[in-house]
């Protein structure tokens, strides 16, 4: 509720922009959580799907012009390419032990990074390029709402996904692969499926991301992007979608504030130091991530009937975000 009303109250464009980016990174982090948190697959190259989505939109807008139709088509193309890519990578490595997937994703994302740098005629290499976006999306408030709506939709969609029979099997795979197999499930299909769902979602977040910047360059394929997703998921709580959202907010806020503080003292130029401290603190205080730790405390508190679903998921999300908004 707070989030819906916010654009009408505040007139700070940068603040709105930051929230928009939080929503987008929340989508990215949630997609990563499907892999890491729900299926137990570690990926070191999740940025490749983000980048594929980003470049699809960038290139399409640049070549075909800024229209809503071609934008939607571009997002769709990004998703299809990501689905194909994740299918190929998954089929190649998910039969093997998990670190093969981690390594192969690292290799593929590296490959795509090089491709984006060298294919200058399309990508303009390292410098990237700016592009026009459809008239409608130029309005920051509209973009804000689009990102918010997409985040909520992705949250609801993925939440439903993990609560379907397939989603339950994914969690079984995370817990005990051998047992899942002896129950009669062919686990490689489930792992590939999880990687495809995660890839498509990540591609969507990449597309949105470049829409806010109206600019795309090779940083979307950088290791930092993957690390962002990893940190957001771990800080928020692995295996909880809400956790991914909260993790995304914390990291983006921390980044923003720490950079701002540079005005007061030059040491904050090195904001990354404090970032590291924050990360260490969170890991010490919340070993299972913020949501994960709070949730297990809550279960201990009312030990009688632990349930792993909270029907009020959506409202807690906006509340917890609302709180942070108030603090700021």
């Amino acid at each position, binding site marked *: 509720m707070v989030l819906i009303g916010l654009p009408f109250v505040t007139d700070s464009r940068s603040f709105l922009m930051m929230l928009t980016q939080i929503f987008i990174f929340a989508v990215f982090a949630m997609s990563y959580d499907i892999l890491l948190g729900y299926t137990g697959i570690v990926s070191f190259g999740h940025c490749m799907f983000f980048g594929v989505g980003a470049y699809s939109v960038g290139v399409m807008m640049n070549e075909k012009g800024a229209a809503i139709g071609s934008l939607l088509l571009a997002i769709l193309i990004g998703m299809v390419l990501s689905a194909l890519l994740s299918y190929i990578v998954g089929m190649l490595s998910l039969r093997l032990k998990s670190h093969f997937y981690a390594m192969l994703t690292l290799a593929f994302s590296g490959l795509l990074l090089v491709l984006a740098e060298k294919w200058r005629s399309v990508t303009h290499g390292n410098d990237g390029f700016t592009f026009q976006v459809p008239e409608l999306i130029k309005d920051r408030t509209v973009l804000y709402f689009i990102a918010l709506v997409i985040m909520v939709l992705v949250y609801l969609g993925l939440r439903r996904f993990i609560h379907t029979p397939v989603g339950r099997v994914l969690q079984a795979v995370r817990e005990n692969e051998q047992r899942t197999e002896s129950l*009669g499930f062919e686990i490689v299909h489930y792992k590939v499926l999880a990687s495809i769902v995660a890839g498509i979602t990540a591609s969507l977040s990449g597309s949105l991301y470049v829409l806010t910047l109206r600019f795309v360059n090779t940083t979307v394929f950088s290791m930092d992007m993957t690390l962002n997703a990893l940190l957001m998921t771990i800080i928020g709580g692995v295996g909880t979608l809400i956790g991914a959202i909260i993790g995304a907010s914390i990291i983006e806020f921390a980044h923003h504030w720490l950079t701002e503080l540079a005005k007061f003292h030059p040491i904050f130029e090195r904001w990354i130091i404090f970032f590291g401290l924050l990360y260490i603190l969170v890991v010490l205080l919340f070993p299972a991530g913020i949501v994960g730790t709070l949730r297990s405390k809550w279960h201990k508190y009312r030990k009688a009937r632990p349930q792993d679903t909270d029907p009020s998921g959506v409202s807690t999300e906006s509340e917890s975000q609302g709180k942070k908004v108030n603090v700021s």
Partner: protein
Amino acid sequence: MDPILQTEGLTIAFGAYTAVDDVTLAVPRNHFKSIIGPNGAGKTTFFNLLSGQLKVTQGTVKFKGQDVSALPPFARTRLGMGRSFQITNVFPKLTVLENVRLAVQSQAGVRFHMLLHYRSRRFRVFEEGALHLLDMVLLGSRRDTLAMHLAHGEKRKLEIAMLLALQPDLLLLDEPTAGISLEEVPAILEVIRRIKSEGDRTIMLIEHKMEMILDLSDSITVLFNGKLLADGTPEDIMNNEMVQTAYLGGLYDDAVASQGHADVY
């Protein structure tokens, strides 16, 4: 009637070491067969060959008349073979109910459904089926506990419930009473007896507790050093001299000295 399970010259070697050596065996339908033998005789390895966790080096496993030697574990499960593990093997961080529900879901063939909620009207039957099985293994009251918080004996019962959920025609039980406290043994025994009394399943059991074996079995197979030493009714086996020496010692040296000895028998 055709035997439900047949092995022919079943052999597996790990390098130079032959863990299961030329075992030929047939198990009729709805039969209760126990497998005994000293530690390291290859009993669990034998089960692993039957259920597909290990690939045979030589020989074949025939299940319901079909050669399954090359099939992966999940395919054998779908054919109706269910096994429990000596080391408890459950989903530790899922609830007891969810553990069994997954097995029921697998049995129902719902594998790739990803639109409806797992508790929607269509899938609620899985939960009901799971609850019914939990009652059968005396775990109904622990449905919402995480499996990792169960006592050891309860985990074994949970495993049996998961196994039953698959409605296997052939049950492979690997030491269901291993490592559990003495007070809990009768409960497990009771569960196995209930399964047996339903009379529509073939059961193979690895156990060390002789009184339990003699009580339940229709026939007993003795493995020793990977070889089939004897196979017969409980009375035969109890009166078999070689089996007694195998357990009491002394035979090991003989067996190594004269390789053909066991085969002659």
